[in-house]
């Protein structure tokens, strides 16, 4: 099978949320010695982009978006060991993501993490109820490009600002792009915090991170 044809099939399997088929095609790509970077970008990547488009159009909803992302993650686990020599060019960037201290709402953050990971980012999901200091420390350890901080409550969203403040205190603000998420977050709040951006949905979050990464 030509790589173009395989990519089309992979993309379709992702859009159809057919996990078995997607994983089988990933294995076939590995066994056939195909250019796996091409497969990731034009097969799996294309599929996940299409799912994002379908979500935009109101055809696909969050559970399906999540499943698409999870299938993508599992496929990447198969493909990554074979991509070692290309990992530099493959990896789009490192994202450390967490829900802020005092807040146990993790779903929004998890969806964003899944979608970023599905789009080729190395995502370190620290979970929920994470202190601002710890988020910064982990970002430094992971050599992250982007820090994502989620808050669902107006009472905990102040912690988002704290993350930016700590980065400033330690004089490392410019090393990271900081993005915020969660229901109470608005553009105004992002400005107040001195963060770099926010998005309203997981699909938009991926677009935002791509934009921020390229504006580096």
């Amino acid at each position: 099978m030509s790589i173009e044809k395989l990519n089309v099939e992979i993309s379709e399997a992702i859009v159809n949320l057919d996990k078995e088929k997607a994983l089988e095609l990933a294995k076939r790509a590995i066994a056939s010695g195909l250019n796996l970077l091409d497969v990731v970008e034009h097969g799996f990547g294309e599929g996940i982009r299409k799912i994002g488009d379908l979500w935009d159009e109101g055809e696909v909803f969050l559970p399906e978006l999540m499943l698409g992302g999870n299938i993508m993650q599992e496929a990447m686990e198969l493909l990554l060991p074979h991509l070692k020599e290309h990992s530099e060019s493959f990896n789009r960037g490192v994202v450390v993501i967490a829900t802020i201290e005092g807040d146990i709402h993790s779903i929004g953050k998890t969806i964003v993490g899944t979608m970023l990971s599905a789009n080729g980012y190395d995502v370190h999901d620290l979970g929920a109820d994470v202190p601002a200091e710890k988020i910064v420390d982990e970002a430094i350890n992971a050599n992250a490009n982007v820090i994502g901080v989620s808050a669902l409550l107006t009472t905990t969203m102040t912690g988002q600002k704290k993350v930016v403040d700590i980065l400033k205190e330690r004089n490392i603000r410019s090393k990271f792009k900081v993005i915020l998420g969660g229901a109470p977050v608005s553009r105004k709040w992002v400005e107040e915090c001195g963060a770099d951006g926010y998005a309203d949905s997981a699909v938009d979050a991926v677009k935002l991170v791509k934009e921020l990464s390229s504006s580096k």
Partner: protein
Amino acid sequence: MTILRPKIKVLDEEHKNSILNEAKQILETLGIFVENEQARELLRNQGVNNEGLSFFIPPDLVEKCLQSVPNEITLYDREGEEHMTLKDDNVHYDPGSAAILYLDENSGETREATANDFIRFSKIVGHLKYIEAQSTALVYQDVPKEAQDWHRLYIALSNCHKPVITGTFKKESFSIMRELLLSCRLSEDDLARKPLAIFDACPSPPLKWSDLTTQSLIDAAKSMIPSEFVSMPLAGASAPITLIGSITQHCAECLAGVTIAQLANPGAPLIWGGSPAILDMKYGTTPMGAIETMMINLGDVEMGKYLKLPTHAYMGLSDSKVPDAQSGFEGGMGALLAGLAGVNMVSGPGMLDFESTQSVEKLLIDNEIAGMVKRLLRGIEDRGTPFALDILKDYSETEELLSHPSTLNLFRKELFIAGPIIDRMSRDAWNNAGANSARKRAKIEAKKLESKPAIKPIDDNLVKELKLITTTHLK
């Protein structure tokens, strides 16, 4: 499996029985005024006494005629495929019919409609998931006056596949309309077996069947085309002020219709319906959004169900002149109550200003309301035990249930998927999308739908045939 179907009741058995008996008594003692000679002959043939045009129908004849009315009606679409069944507590919505004005959402003006408005309207109705039937919703002025009723059926059939609720404005039109319907079927028998249209038959309150409407009732009965009674007692003006009095009058008017239709053709399909209203005691208007109007409707429908007949009501309308908050709450309340009452055919979506003005914006909003009501009526479903235990066991693994197989498998069944008219965005997303009101979002959506390819495109030969019939009769 639905545990309980949410329902509403406004009458108990004892009162339904009393209403029915009194309605029969009204027909026997006060009589019904019958303008139509064919109907008079049918009644005279049964030995019904009369004084002038008033006929005193005895209860046993009414009872006999009730026996032959079918309990359910299945409607078929233009292509002859089964579309919906009016029976039990099935609920279906169709746009309120015969508006004389049109709220042009582009200019914001309410004006006389044109044939093009109705073409566009019909195309949009074709795409609305929760409005299952179409209606000859607009009366437009750019056709000859004598074609104003039947021409609408031509446009409706040419532009939308859904069954049509329609009616005549003059006696001669019935045969033309029947011809248009026949062009969508193989034969007269085929049309009788697979009804495509319902004809509204509107008695005049109180207790009067006009020449025109009775003729339509008889003609439809003979062709086994369903007729829908649109009895419209006006409480406090042409009907008793008491809601129960108006319900009783409605019952009597409809029983007279049942008798005439069944005498014309036993077994003729009928729908027990109406458009009652109260009289607004300040402005003298007939508010369709009044809660008491809705209550009379509920009582009327319960009587229809008591007689085991398919039911109809004019609900989901608003008296507001524009799709505003009043339009939303009156439309929403009416559509919801109609759903809870199990009205088989709910006419009203899109309609404003006492049944006079159709609005595409309101129609699209009402489509969402109808979708929500239908979800409610499915009730809480029992999908087997344990209800939550097993799902919650899995929570600790992922700390979310969004990607749980049960969520993926069932979210489309458990949840009503809101359309673009309903705003559930974050404030910023809403701002980015233009900070639009529901009305504005409906306007944007209407634009998309009008140019979307039809769900069921019409056959080229049928287009030609409908056109040929129309041009012949326009000459």
